[in-house]
């Protein structure tokens, strides 16, 4: 086992000094991206980047707490819709975008807590949770798809049914007149995502993180130690919903648009795949794999052939078969091994 | 009757992951013999027998059955060669009936005449099983479950039977019943038996001799006189 177990005590890659340097280099290289690319590539990269909290939310519930949820995309969507409704109705107010962001995150968390009540206080078996969250997501999609008419007008915003909600306000900062686009939007996303990432890492390495990991490792023993695991699972689930909703809000600010099919079956599986491919027990690994996979999928679709879904499927299969702990995590550990060899010599 | 070796081990080592639990255990079980393996909790008795039957890989050493090497074979192959196993905690299938357990055990015995003979014997030994034959195993009492686990292992017509902690969680009067049954079917079936237990009276009433295990190694061999001496036994079991 060796190096792998050395990392087990620590709850993410990049705790050691050398890896901290890596993390900083990662951040710096991300902030250089727009300088070497055009305005539109920066916008594209912003899309890859804004999915990171969604990937992290799966990492948190699944990787750290052992609850596999297909419902993250539902929280992503609900936050997007809620932002659209709130910000779209309050355009007269100053800084209405911020009210929208807060409202979006809160509505997702509210919905998550209702669902979490059903899931955790009923003490359902572990395998039921992924299936049930998937069903929940499909239910939400079915509901939203039929909200086409005027009876689904909230304030002056139309839900828009299957065609989606259009004209969602872009992000605007109070001291700048124009909405953020291109470079400025990219840096906004980078800042937001980096803050979320750092906060989450601090959280996960704190004593609360230990409790969460303990629940994953042995829920019975954790319960005997006096922790109400249901409350903790509830808390983690709601927190993860908040993470997913950050992505959802950034997404609608990016595309000014959201449709029910973005919370469908295909979309629901995506963040889980990112987490599995990166290595679900590491925030850093999943942030890398999220950017990598969204980029990969985008690149494939620009080829204009019919093979893109086959490649994406094959990537999932290969990562599971060849890299037990996810591609990024496995590579990282092996690089660490190599580093140790060099030190010895 | 000339006693020959049924099961022997040579310097068997095994464990979980990188931790070695069993260190160089060598035992030899002869035909029609009941051998105890005794020692305190966590000294590696169960790990040792699990190694014998293939549930845990031996990292070193050799296990032979009638002179054939069976080291690290798949458990089902070892079972088919005639090693019966009554696991610690009984390992019954709670959602299956008593009858189904005996049927399952009996599949090792391809000869249907022998199979019915064994079934009859089992019901003779443990009449309660016959009474409850269509009841779910999960709803039986601990002692009844232990009888069922023994019955399941016997149904396959083993050459050697390994009993892991049959007295655990069983009422004292039932323990005596089980001890009698062990002696009884040994006589009828000419079986060799390995008995792991911490119950001094069960050990001293049934086994012919015993290996005392400590920290994963055999520290002493108790002959037939020694095992009859309950005081000596309790010393080994409780130190």
């Amino acid at each position, binding site marked *: 086992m060796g190096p792998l177990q050395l990392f087990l005590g620590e709850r993410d890659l990049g705790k050691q000094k050398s890896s901290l340097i890596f993390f900083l280099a990662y951040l710096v290289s991300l902030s250089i991206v727009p300088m070497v690319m055009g305005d539109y590539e920066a916008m594209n990269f912003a899309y890859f980047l804004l999915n990171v909290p969604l990937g992290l939310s799966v990492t948190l519930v*699944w990787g750290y707490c052992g609850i596999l949820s297909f419902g993250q995309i539902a929280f992503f969507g609900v936050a997007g819709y809620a932002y659209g409704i709130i910000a779209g109705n309050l355009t007269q107010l100053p800084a209405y975008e911020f009210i929208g962001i807060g409202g979006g995150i809160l509505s997702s968390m509210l919905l998550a807590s209702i669902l979490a009540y059903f899931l955790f206080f*009923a003490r359902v078996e572990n395998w039921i949770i992924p299936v049930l969250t998937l069903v929940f997501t499909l239910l939400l999609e079915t509901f939203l798809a039929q909200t086409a008419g005027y009876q689904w007008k909230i304030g002056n915003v139309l839900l828009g049914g299957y065609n989606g909600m259009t004209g969602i306000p872009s992000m605007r900062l109070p001291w700048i007149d124009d909405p953020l686009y291109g470079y400025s939007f990219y840096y906004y996303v980078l800042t937001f995502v980096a803050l979320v990432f750092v906060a989450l890492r601090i959280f996960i390495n704190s004593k609360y993180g230990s409790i969460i990991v303990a629940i994953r490792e042995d829920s019975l023993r954790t319960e005997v130690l006096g922790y109400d695991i249901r409350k903790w699972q509830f808390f983690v689930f709601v927190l993860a919903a908040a993470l997913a909703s950050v992505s959802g809000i950034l997404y609608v600010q990016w595309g000014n648009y959201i449709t029910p099919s973005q919370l469908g079956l295909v979309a629901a599986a995506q963040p889980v795949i990112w987490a599995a491919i990166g290595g679900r027990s590491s925030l850093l690994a999943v942030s890398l794999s999220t950017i990598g996979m969204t980029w990969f999928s985008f690149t494939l679709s620009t080829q204009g052939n019919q093979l893109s879904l086959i490649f994406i499927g094959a990537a999932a299969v290969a990562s599971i078969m060849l890299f037990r702990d996810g591609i990024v995590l496995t590579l990282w550990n092996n690089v660490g091994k190599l580093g140790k060899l060099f030190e010895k010599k | 009757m000339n006693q020959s070796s049924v099961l022997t081990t040579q310097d068997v080592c095994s464990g979980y992951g990188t931790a070695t639990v069993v260190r160089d255990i060598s035992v030899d079980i002869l035909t029609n013999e009941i051998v105890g393996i005794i020692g305190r909790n966590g000294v590696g008795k169960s790990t040792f027998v699990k190694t014998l039957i293939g549930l845990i890989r031996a990292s070193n050493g050799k296990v032979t059955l009638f002179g054939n090497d069976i080291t690290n074979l*798949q458990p*089902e192959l070892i079972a088919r060669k005639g090693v019966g196993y009554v696991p610690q905690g009984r390992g019954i299938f709670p959602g299956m009936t008593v009858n189904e357990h005996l049927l399952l055990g009996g599949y090792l015995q391809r000869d249907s005449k022998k199979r019915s003979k064994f079934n009859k014997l089992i019901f003779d030994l443990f009449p309660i099983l016959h009474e409850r034959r269509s*009841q779910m195993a999960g709803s039986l009492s601990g002692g009844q479950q232990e009888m069922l686990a023994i019955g399941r292992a016997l149904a396959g017509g083993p050459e050697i039977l390994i009993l892991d902690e049959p007295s655990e969680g069983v009422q004292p009067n039932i323990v005596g019943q089980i001890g009698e049954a062990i002696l009884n079917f040994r006589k009828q079936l000419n079986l060799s038996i390995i008995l792991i237990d911490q119950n001094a009276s069960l050990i001293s009433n049934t086994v012919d001799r015993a290996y005392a295990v400590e920290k994963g190694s055999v520290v002493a061999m108790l002959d037939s006189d020694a095992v009859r001496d309950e005081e000596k036994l309790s010393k080994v079991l409780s130190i």
Partner: protein
Amino acid sequence: MEIAPLIISLVYQALTAGAFLVLCSIGLMIVLGMMNIINLAHGEIMMIGAYVASLLVTEGLPFFLTLPFCFLVGVLVGLVIEFLFIRYLYSRILSALVLTWGLGLIIAQGALLIYGPFLPSIKIPFGSIEYGGFTYSIYQLFLIFVAALLVALIYFILQKTELGLKARATMQNPEIASTIGINRKKMFSITFAFGAGLAALAGGVLAPTTTIAPFMGTQFVAPAFITVVVGGATNIITGTLYSAGSLAAIRTPIGMYLGSFAGTVGLFFAALILIRLYPNGLASIRLFGRR
């Protein structure tokens, strides 16, 4: 409107809906219940069954004779998937989930590349009968029969045959099962292949009532998973029956009076509420308790 024909129609609809749920979920239920593997490629294996049926019918084989081939191809596909992938993932339920998701994508898009967007549909055999203003498709009655037959067959196999007993023992405790001479790996392979075969057979049987297209599998996924979740994995037969039965009984009257949307939403909510009431699945209710 007379009341008797309406009641008969409702019963027919409920049975049809129940049969649909049973056919969708039975293969998934076996694989999940026995092996603790959530097979996200389940819908795609059903698609394979429908493809086999359509291709053979195009070749001139009568529809009913294609069904054994559907089953066999499903078994074959199951064996290959099990041999190449699943056997390395028995203790890693969630990895298996991601893997089967990927496989599902490859199978569906592969079918699109090889066979194009649609295969010719299969003419529904038999006609219809009429009673009191409602007509009933004989093929739907046949589907109800097939669903019942499959459940009975699986019940027989699991309860009365050596294979079934061994499979159940393996499902309850694979380690102990191996110590009484049961080959765990073989049982897992057989179970997975059998589950895949059943899925493909269900796909074949349902093929005449559906569009035969590469992504047709997705339509079965949600009903199959809901049935499985509500039923629970503790007992395949009672779980499937209770779950499909109660869901169909809830959905049909709602759908009849309030329309399909209400029926679908009713189905989802029924699932949520049933799970809250019976977190371990309806199979955990014992109607014929033996305690």
